[in-house]
């Protein structure tokens, strides 16, 4: 298969203020079963032979579970199939078509080079509450914390998030609500997450704001590009948990302690 590629190039190291631009490449004789990343590998090998600068892009596991690859393909994060970029195959495109490849677009995801962006903002949101406190030591009794199957399913449906950031890139507001909602849902429904239930949601929402993510206007685009098909129900859960944490009356002793 043959394609014309419009690929975003930015920051070749010579100019700190580089605003970026599209460059056109022609690729020929591409295997239909190659992924879009393998197609970029072939292009990079050619660029190396021609002594030209390679196209920078992120990838790691290449089997759709790590969440490292992050391409906006023809305007849609991860491309047309609602899978990760690495699981997007060239057979999904029409022979001879022009494919536009860009990095994830959000003010919170600064471009590092070409198609690679810094998604550290999501890590800092996790640091603000996406964890549980647990005692180490001998293995606990397996039945000490019963979890009902419905609860387990709900937690797992949210825990499946791979943190790729496509939700942020798809959101017209650049919001990270699906990502944060998934993490809050995952931990707040499980017994292990209860001690930090309120501080988790408040901390993560504050960190989202501090990073400069936008707010949710219930467009639902995040869920439509999510390779793990996480539903916007997790955003409802995030909103609910935040409201409850903020409107709950504190016991008097706690108030007295916090003012000391």
């Amino acid at each position, binding site marked *: 298969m043959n394609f014309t590629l419009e690929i975003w190039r930015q920051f070749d190291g010579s100019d700190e203020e580089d605003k970026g631009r599209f460059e056109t490449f022609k690729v020929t004789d591409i295997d239909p079963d190659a992924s879009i990343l393998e197609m970029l590998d072939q292009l990079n090998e050619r660029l190396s032979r021609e002594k030209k600068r390679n196209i920078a892009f992120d990838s790691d596991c290449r089997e759709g579970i790590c969440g490292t690859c992050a391409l906006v393909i023809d*305007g*849609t994060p991860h491309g047309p199939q609602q899978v990760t970029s690495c699981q997007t195959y060239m057979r999904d495109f029409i022979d001879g078509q022009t494919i536009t490849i860009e990095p994830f*677009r*959000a*003010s*919170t995801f600064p471009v590092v080079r070409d198609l690679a962006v810094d998604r550290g903002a999501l890590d800092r949101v996790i640091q603000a509450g996406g964890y549980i406190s647990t005692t180490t030591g001998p293995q606990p009794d397996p039945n000490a914390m019963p979890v009902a199957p419905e609860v387990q399913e709900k937690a797992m449906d949210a825990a499946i998030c791979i943190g790729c950031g496509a939700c942020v*890139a*798809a*959101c*017209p*507001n*650049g*919001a990270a609500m699906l990502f944060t909602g998934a993490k809050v849902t995952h931990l707040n429904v499980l017994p292990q997450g209860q001690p930090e239930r309120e501080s988790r949601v408040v901390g993560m*929402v*504050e960190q*989202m*704001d501090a990073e*400069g*993510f*936008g*707010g*949710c*206007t*219930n*467009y*639902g*685009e995040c869920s*439509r*590009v999510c390779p793990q098909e996480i*539903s*916007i*129900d997790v*955003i*409802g*859960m*995030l*909103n*609910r*948990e*935040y*409201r*409850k944490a*903020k*409107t709950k009356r504190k016991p008097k002793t706690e108030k007295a302690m916090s003012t000391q």
Partner: protein
Amino acid sequence: MLEYWRSTVGKKQFVAVTGAILVGYLILHMLGNLNSAFGPGADEARVDWYAHWLRTFGEPLLPRETILWVVRVVLLGALIVHITGIAQLVKRNREARPANFPAKRIGRSVESMAMLGTGILLLAFIIFHILQFTTLSIHVTPVEEGAVYANLYWVFQKWYFLAIYLAALVLVGMHLRHGIWSLFQTLGLDNPSRNQKLRHGATALVVILVIGFGSVPVLFFTDVLDPPREVALATILSGVFT
């Protein structure tokens, strides 16, 4: 509370609650409007009686128009919070995306994309609507304090007023079709099993509101409703002169 307002999630919840207050008022407003569908009546139009009742409600326990003014203040307050919250959120949302890179539309509804536009146009309409029927400052058609039925009748004899009010209803419908469902999501009152019902419920409420509001001007324009009793007007005037 201030912390709640400062966060994007909290601010949006303020917007949702104030939006719910405004929707609640719209439902009451529509029910009130339907009083005009009873026609000019034998001696007094039912809508005139209703308007009078709104002003004297609670007397003699409360001074005249107390309830009316409480409602007006609550509505104005809700509207100010609603608009301020949204203005600040829109600014944040714009900053969260680099310039010149609008996100491609994948499946978001037209209503959700038009929320800001319909909201601004609705604000303009509300100002016009208050000038026309509350302060009675638009004198294109005869308007008179207390004569609600006659005021409505003369306004909706003009095709352009009918067009303005029906256009505003389209805006209300669009704004609320996204807004009503959205407020449940924003307040976290949804759950997965209820979500689809909430969406359909929002659409159903919008249809009821648009038909309820739209019927009155259309009934006036098509002359299904009789003209106001000039006789009643004449007796008031003669009372003034004697």
